[in-house]
Structure formats: structure tokens, C-alpha cells
């Protein structure tokens, strides 16, 4: 339990005093009001934490895929691709890029696809063992793609920053 100190305007407290039997009752009431306020604020912040957990859960789910997960002979996800995916997601999150856990897809040949929805359209990233590939599907504007950028996935490559507008 932590102790915090607050300063209240005496005149303000005087106005509510008639509603309480003594100072101890005022103290208790303030305590309960503050707790309610902090709890509500914590709940407001909670969805952000849940979203991050969803991404982590999704990556874990992909790392747990067994051989032949698609019934057509797909490979198990290479551990390097999983660690690259975690690093890439961290890098995107730094720039407040919104990613949805449902937009992560494994490929049968052991890479992970992350589709990012932007106001212009979709940017589809592919995370491999040593490269990041992408293409855009923008409506009514010129599209771009890369067959593979060599990266360690810790930072977003400059070319990709331009596409993401960050």
C-alpha cells in the first residue's frame, strides 16, 4: 500500500463538512472517491495492454505450429523468423503503427505475413529469416513493393518508414 499526500482548499472542505459526521468520515469518503477514479482510469488503459498481449499470443501461436499445420505439408516456423517477427512488431509499435493480431498469417514455407491497414490501403509485410519483403495495395495510387530488404528487424528500414509515413 502506498501513501500519497494531497492538499485540499479549506474553504472547499468546509462546504461539504455538514454532510459528514467528522473529519475521519471525510477522509474515508475521499479515499473511496480516489480509488474509484484510479480504477476507472486503469480500466481505460487496459485495452492497450490487452492488444499488446493479443499480438504476443498470436506470435506464440505461430511459433507453436507443427509440421504440416495446413494439411498440405507446411513447415514449422523457423525460430529466427519468430524472433524477427517480435523485433519487427516492437519496431512498429514504437512508431504507434496499429497492428491487428488477426492480420498475422503464416506461409507454408516458413515466413510470417503482417498486413497493416492504412488510410490509403493495405501494406503487406513478409518477415523471413534475414529479409523483410513488402508490397502495397493502395486504391487509386501508385503501388510499391520490395523483393527483400536485408535487415536485423530491430529498426524499421528507411524505405519502409517512407511507405508508412513515419
Amino acid at each position, binding site marked *: 500500500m502506498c501513501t500519497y499526500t494531497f492538499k485540499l482548499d479549506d474553504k472547499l472542505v468546509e462546504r461539504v463538512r455538514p454532510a459528514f459526521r467528522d473529519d475521519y468520515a471525510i477522509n474515508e469518503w475521499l479515499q473511496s472517491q480516489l480509488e474509484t477514479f484510479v480504477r476507472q482510469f486503469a480500466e481505460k488503459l487496459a485495452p492497450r495492454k490487452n492488444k499488446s498481449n493479443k499480438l504476443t499470443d498470436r506470435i506464440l501461436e505461430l511459433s507453436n505450429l507443427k509440421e504440416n*499445420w*495446413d*494439411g*498440405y*505439408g*507446411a*513447415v514449422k516456423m*523457423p525460430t*529466427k*523468423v519468430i524472433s524477427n517477427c517480435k523485433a519487427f512488431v516492437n519496431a512498429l509499435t514504437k512508431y504507434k503503427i496499429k497492428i491487428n493480431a*488477426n492480420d498475422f*498469417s*503464416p*506461409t*507454408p*514455407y*516458413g*515466413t510470417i*505475413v503482417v498486413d497493416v491497414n492504412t488510410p490509403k490501403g493495405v501494406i*503487406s509485410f*513478409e*518477415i*523471413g*529469416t*534475414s*529479409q*523483410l*519483403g*513488402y*508490397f502495397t*495495395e493502395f486504391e487509386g495510387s501508385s503501388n510499391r*513493393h*520490395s*523483393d*527483400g530488404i536485408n535487415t536485423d528487424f530491430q529498426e524499421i528500414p528507411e524505405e519502409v518508414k517512407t511507405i508508412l509515413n513515419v
Partner: protein
Amino acid sequence: MGEVIDKTILSDEECARCIYSPFHYSESKNKLKREAFLPKAGDDCISLLRLRYCNYDYCINHGLKISNPPDKIFCVIAVLTQNILTALNENFDTDELKASIVYSPMNGNDYVDTKIPVYVDDANVSTPMHADIKYNKIVKIGEVQTQMRRYASELCKRVKYAKISDIKNGVWYQKAEFDENNK
């Protein structure tokens, strides 16, 4: 012996691909994923069933054998033709990547020698109506494949597909796009 399986895939011959949720199909968006049309590592092929030699009931039974709920749920059948791939090959912005549907009967997990005639009711061939989408590129494990993903993405927009519960009612998605490519 019944009819011999034609080694030539006709341009408008319909071929079916069994699609599984969640990896090939998004239930929430009711949308096919391009990953449904990507080959496995060390390969360049994607399995299909020729509807000229089987019906949707056969495809559904085939798909249900591979289904493994809740991880992999057989939910959709996608249909495409050689015409669609020919149009894509012509319009795709690079000449490096091509694909076509090829004759490839299978017995269990093994391909049957394509020089040997195969019959519809062949006792030695478990899936005589099997065919493949064959790309001109073999994919390697963990290697990004931007061109192939772009190709598969375009292919996804041109195939028609139906939920297995809707096939008998004839409820197809993207039928107009499919028909446009098969005029």
C-alpha cells in the same frame, strides 16, 4: 475400366481448392487469404481437384479428411480455371513469375507417373482427379516471396468461393469476377 483422365487441362475447366480457417480464410472478414495459394517449402505446386472428374460432395469429403478442428477447420471451396491464370500471367507486371494448372494424379501422397494412362475409377490411383497450380519457381524455407505473394493476392480476387454449407444453395462470392475471366 472407366474414362481415361485427360492430361490436358481445358481453359475453362473448373478446379477446386479446399480452404481451411483460420490460415487460408478469415471468418470475421469472410475473405480468402492469399496464403491459400502459396506452395510449401521446397515446392512449386498447390493441390487442386478437377471438377470435370468429381463433384462438390467428393471435394467436401476430401476436405473434411484433412480438417482438424479447432486448429484447422475446412470451411470453404475456392474454384479457379486455367483462363484465370493465363490472364494473370499476361497482366502481371513482371515476366519472371508464371503459373498454370497441370495434370498430376496422386496415389496417397505420391504423384503418379504422368506417362501412364490413369482412369477415373483406377484401382491403383487414389486421387485421379488431382491437379496442381504449378509456379515456375520453387520456394525456399524462410525466404520472402514478394512476387509470388502479389500473384497469389491477385489470384484471390479472381477465384469464386463458397462456404461448404452454401454450395448446394449456389451461394458464391466473387462470381462476377470469376465469370469475367471465363467469358
